[in-house]
């Protein structure tokens, strides 16, 4: 009985194990035999091949390097940069441009454009020394066409510049010449060789130009989402509440109540739809850009202006005209951050490259120069963020950190040291006190003295721990802003020997400059104003509630402005400064304001009493009383710039506890407040 029970339990155990075995084994056998069915719903991907590891490589080992070489450049029937441009002529002095003189009587515009190129740093008068020969083809509307010039040489190293689409028949073969023309069609455009220009209206200003229309960063509430470019000119703002595709003729629905603005008025909307078919629409593109209306280009058949260097994805949207609803939905749902960025970029680009004929031509030359420079060309960042490549010279540096404009994007900080540059003009007393005050600053790295008067150099200089360099020679006033190679820091404290500053003034001003490295930080100010009576600009050094300039006899600014002053300003302006020395301050302020589009910064200047009178006997006063330059100076410079870049500020940056009725012990810049 017991054994039977035992046997029974044994059998039970045995059969249970068998069952388990059969179940487990059978299941796995089943899995082997039948390929598993994919679970429904899951996408069936590319199979994992069992023998994937055994597959051969697409290129057999040894095959890659064994390519039999035949140095036969692949050739086509058109030109590219490597094949058709001879850079050997440009070695040494960079891009030098010779402009063919016009053959017959020329229009006023042509004349002024010629003058503008001749005034630029690219120009040369000798066709032999030039690396680029420029053929202006401007007066198309007058019906004149250029004939083949003398040094044509099959068009090698030539640039044919057509600002307006030419009705001219091609009177001669272009050969190897590059073409810069307005809105070239995508099919005829040779990327990296031709240059695409914007489609300029006839009355485009030559110089300066109207600023962008945008007055605020973000779109006004209630502004129309879309403006549509009309075939007969003008814009129509569209209501986008309806789901219709407002620009597509195939849509049967009415696009809703629209408002038509005729004539040349600028569109007032967030996005501007521009057809890509008609080349005339390209002129609308520029209009939209100026208005800060984000251009939405529908399948453009033409090349966008300066597409070689400008990243248009930051300022415009290129969309497919075949997907109207999707584009509309995408525009409606676009994040405020993106809209904000696009809007601001339109304004920057307009202002930097398109607002005047001069800018367009200079940009064209800069594009070609960048090709010649190769690795020393402008990095993309310099082209695509303020102040733009025309104002950020790649000859200064190709590293964005070296400029005052890109610290944020680069995650870098301005240097913690400065160089003091002291100009000693007549009567020529060594500025001993000043040197000591400046050398006392913990941020000072070096002192440079520009000895610029008749007197011989003093034999002894005050003993300071600071390295002191004396640059001797009778110099022009504009040499104050020469980019001396001995300046080793980014920050420069520009001083006149007659200035008087205390160490804590210098320290505080420098700390402020570090927060605003692209601006000028100064102690003494002056301002400009519109003089109704004379119909011109006026200048005053009186103390007022606002200011637009700081005097460079005591100011911090970035070393880069010396390079810009010397290499980018037209020669005529620098001559003006040399002839009327008081103009040099105004000129420098104009330059910095034109670059930054911001006012300078004023910091407190403590000394109201003449306790720091220079040792000079013949000085005009205890401290350089800012002399009012001839008002003409402001007007002449404004005319040369083509606009008035100066901006006014109503604030002064003081130390946080400045003149507060609290214990002096708390204050870091105590001596700033001493009477």
């Amino acid at each position, binding site marked *: 009985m017991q054994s039977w029970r035992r046997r029974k339990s044994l059998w039970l155990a045995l059969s249970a194990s068998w069952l388990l075995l059969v179940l487990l084994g059978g299941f796995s056998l089943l899995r082997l035999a039948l390929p598993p069915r994919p679970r429904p719903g899951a996408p069936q991907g590319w199979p994992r091949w069992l023998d994937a590891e055994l597959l051969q490589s697409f290129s057999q080992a040894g095959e890659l390097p064994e390519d039999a070489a035949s140095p036969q450049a692949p050739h086509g029937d058109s030109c590219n940069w490597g094949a058709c441009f001879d850079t050997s002529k440009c070695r040494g002095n960079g891009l030098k441009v010779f402009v063919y003189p016009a053959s017959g009587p020329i229009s006023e515009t042509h004349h002024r454009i010629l003058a503008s190129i001749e005034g630029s740093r690219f120009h040369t008068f000798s066709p032999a020394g030039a690396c680029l020969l420029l053929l202006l083809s401007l007066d198309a509307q007058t019906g004149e066409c250029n004939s083949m010039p003398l040094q044509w040489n099959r068009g090698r190293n030539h640039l044919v510049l057509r600002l307006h689409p030419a009705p001219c028949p091609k009177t001669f073969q272009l050969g190897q010449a590059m073409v810069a023309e307005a809105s070239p069609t995508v099919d005829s455009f040779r990327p990296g060789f031709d240059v695409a220009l914007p489609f300029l209206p006839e009355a485009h200003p030559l110089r300066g130009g109207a600023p962008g229309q945008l007055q605020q960063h973000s779109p006004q509430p209630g502004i129309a989402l879309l403006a549509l470019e009309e075939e007969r000119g003008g814009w129509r703002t569209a209501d986008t509440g309806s789901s219709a595709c407002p620009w597509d003729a195939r849509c049967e629905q009415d696009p809703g109540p629209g408002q038509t603005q005729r004539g040349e008025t600028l569109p007032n909307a967030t996005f501007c739809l521009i057809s890509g078919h008609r080349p005339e629409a390209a002129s609308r593109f520029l209009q939209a850009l100026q208005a800060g209306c984000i251009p939405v280009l529908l399948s453009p058949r033409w090349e966008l202006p300066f597409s070689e260097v400008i990243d248009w994805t930051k300022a415009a949207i290129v969309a497919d005209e075949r997907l109207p609803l999707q584009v509309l939905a995408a525009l409606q749902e676009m994040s405020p*951050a993106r809209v904000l960025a696009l809007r601001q970029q339109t304004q920057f680009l307009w202002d930097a490259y398109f607002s005047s004929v001069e800018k367009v031509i200079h940009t064209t030359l800069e594009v070609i120069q960048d090709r010649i420079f190769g690795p020393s060309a402008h990095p993309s960042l310099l082209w695509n963020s303020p102040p733009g490549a025309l104002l950020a010279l790649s000859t200064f540096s190709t*590293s964005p950190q070296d400029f005052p404009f890109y610290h944020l994007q680069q995650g870098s900080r301005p240097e913690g040291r400065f160089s003091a540059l002291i100009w000693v003009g007549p009567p020529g007393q060594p500025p001993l006190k000043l040197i000591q005050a400046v050398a006392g600053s913990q941020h000072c790295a070096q002192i440079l003295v520009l000895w610029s008067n008749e007197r011989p150099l003093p034999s002894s200089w005050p003993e300071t721990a600071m390295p002191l360099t004396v640059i001797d020679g009778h110099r022009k006033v504009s040499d104050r802003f020469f980019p001396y190679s001995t300046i080793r820091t980014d920050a420069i404290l520009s001083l006149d020997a007659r200035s008087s500053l205390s160490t804590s003034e210098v320290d505080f001003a420098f700390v402020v400059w570090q927060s605003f490295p692209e601006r000028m930080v100064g102690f003494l100010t002056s301002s400009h104003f519109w003089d109704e009576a004379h119909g011109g600009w006026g200048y005053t050094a009186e103390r007022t*509630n606002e200011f637009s300039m700081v005097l460079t006899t005591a100011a911090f600014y970035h070393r880069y402005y010396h390079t810009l002053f010397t290499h980018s300003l037209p020669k005529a302006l620098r001559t003006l400064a040399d002839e009327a020395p008081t103009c040099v301050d105004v000129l420098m302020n104009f330059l910095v304001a034109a670059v930054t589009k911001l006012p300078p910064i004023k910091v407190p200047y403590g000394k109201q009493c003449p306790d720091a009178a220079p040792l000079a006997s013949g000085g005009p006063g205890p401290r350089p009383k800012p002399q009012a330059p001839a008002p003409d100076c402001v007007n002449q410079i404004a005319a040369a710039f083509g606009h008035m870049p100066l901006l006014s500020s109503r604030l002064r940056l003081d130390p946080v506890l400045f003149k507060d009725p609290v214990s002096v012990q708390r204050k870091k810049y105590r001596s700033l407040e001493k009477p």
Partner: protein
Amino acid sequence: MSCASGPGGGLRHPLRCQEPWDEECEKEAACVIMCASVKYNIRGPALIPRMKTKHRIYYITLFSIVLLGLIATGMFQFWPHSIESSNDWNVEKRSVRDVPVVRLPADSPIPERGDLSCRMHTCFDVYRCGFNPKNKIKVYIYALKKYVDDFGIPVSNTISREYNELLTAISDSDYYTDDINRACLFVPSIDVLNQNTLRIKETAQALAQLSRWDRGTNHLLFNMLPGGPPDYNTALDVPRDRALLAGGGFSTWTYRQGYDVSIPVYSPLSAAVDLPEKGPGPRRYFLMSSQVGLHPEYREDLEALQVKHGESVLVLDKCTNLSEGVLSVRKRCHKHQVFDYPQVLQEATFCVVLRGARLGQAMLSDVLQAGCVPVVIADSYILPFSEVLDWKRASVVVPEEKMSDMYSILQSIPQRQIEEMQRQARWFWEAYFQSIKAIALATLQIINDRIYPYAAISYEEWNDPPAVKWGSVSNPLFLPLIPPQSQGFTAIVLTYDRVESLFRVITEVSKVPSLSKLLVVWNNQNKNPPEDSLWPKIRVPLKVVRTAENKLSNRFFPYDEIETEAVLAIDDDIIMLTSDELQFGYEVWREFPDRLVGYPGRLHLWDHEMNKWKYESEWTNEVSMVLTGAAFYHKYFNYLYTYKMPGDIKNWVDAHMNCEDIAMNFLVANVTGKAVIKVTPRKKFKCPECTAIDGLSLDQTHMVERSECINKFASVFGTMPLKVVEHRADPVLYKDDFPEKLKSFPNIGSL
């Protein structure tokens, strides 16, 4: 925004079994069964001795068989097999040799040759890409087939390892769809990576018979080695009509800009050799050429350079006398010196990549991997992904004609730029060259960006190495612009129930000339705001917004009622600010529209003892925050605060009813990279910090809380974005020796 994701974002619970095919899960189950059978083993033999010997042997044998079987089954079931199957549960497992064979009749149609005028808007059918909320194209891959001609001779190798990897990568990506009807882009499984391994006409016929071929519209072919001897065309010779070509080695003549995609030639060495990153800086050789099979003319030019510049130039060639078994691909020689390739590339600053028979060279990938700056000498070559990658930052392109000047061109590049290029070269390799997968995904991304341009990836995302992306700040209000004064500002007063004080604030603020609207945010749900007639009569519109919940973040909501760009946030107890102070504050904001411009200044400090941040409200020489109890800022920051605040900060602030002002300071400083501006000397406010009647103890807990906030926010942002400055803004003539009545803002200066 340069903020880190919060800690613990990607934590998994390793042992929680959620999915039936979870690997861990099955292992555990296996263990349970094994343990059970061991127990069995122990109990079993205890019964046996009482049985007859004959039976005993019988049972023992039986048991052993069962046990062995069980163990074997268990092993088979759950061991290595299970790991594989758990991953690929749903994927077909077959051999490449078993794929269906398709016979191509000799007279089957051949596509037209490539159409050189193709552009996206002419040859590409966008309608297939339809509406797509994610802005992602859908890619379909044709099933693998083996194509043979009439005589049964295969048209090509069925598939190469790399093409299989490429299709696997696409199939694993978000782009993939298995529904041919929903696809926007079709990728044939016909492998055309290397033109030399296929028969051109028959491959074209195979393409033409694909089910959705339709003249090749929306079909994407990948080819890395185009052309064949003797003239080596720079694009795939297989007629392909309108199909897009992702090709390695395009020239300007064959590349259809904006239609084709130029891709790298994958270097199989990338996978085989692990070159650890070598930091930038000067290297042993300035210039190196390691190419073999160069045309004698080029080699002469290079050797001339070596003679001229001596040690700094190294020209390598193939080794002639290598012993058996050594891979010639992995060795290079100079005279009798043998070098390991590609390791030797790490010894050079610049590496020459010359045009061989083909324009595209796999060597470019090796050079980038070694962090060597490629000197590309191949006229008209379209560099890989040149549509999006900025090669100026990672390479030097020298015209073939200028080869002899190469050395002086390279020497003119400043050292800092060279180091930048070295870093960039390595980053390009890591991001876009390293694997077939990287190449495939970059190609699809480029096509995707053309179809959904409004969602395209930016230049910076393509080109900036992660270190730069992390460190850089892109200010959302980057345009230098001084808004017109005429616009004015909107004052927003957050209030709960202090009606009397609120009315005083409204009256005071309404005296400011530039005020254009006043918005009262009524945060009390239990009480109605006073009747209309009771409110102070002011010259500008006054709106009351009632909120649904008493939350601090209501103050920063981007209300539709805000029409001006400038917003003045002001507490309902800030009654001491004069009209001059407020007007001046607005003027200062106009000059700094991208900053917080406010009156109460605060500072954060590093507490060395506690090793954490500390909040400081003493009157110090420095400022890093301004409190939003009285501050001007751009209304865009309201949008950012409400919708883009990183981590859980917004909820945290609402839950703790504190620190919304510190959060705003963090947000603005992080996104703009700039410091705040404190205006005017004013320091005493009847501020939230002094509400308690007996300030001291409460004050201390308050300071602790505020310090906690700073530490919490710094950890969420992953950095300390606040910037410390030593200045404040005063009117130009503040405290100057000047007649008061001539000053624009005379009523400024009390603490």
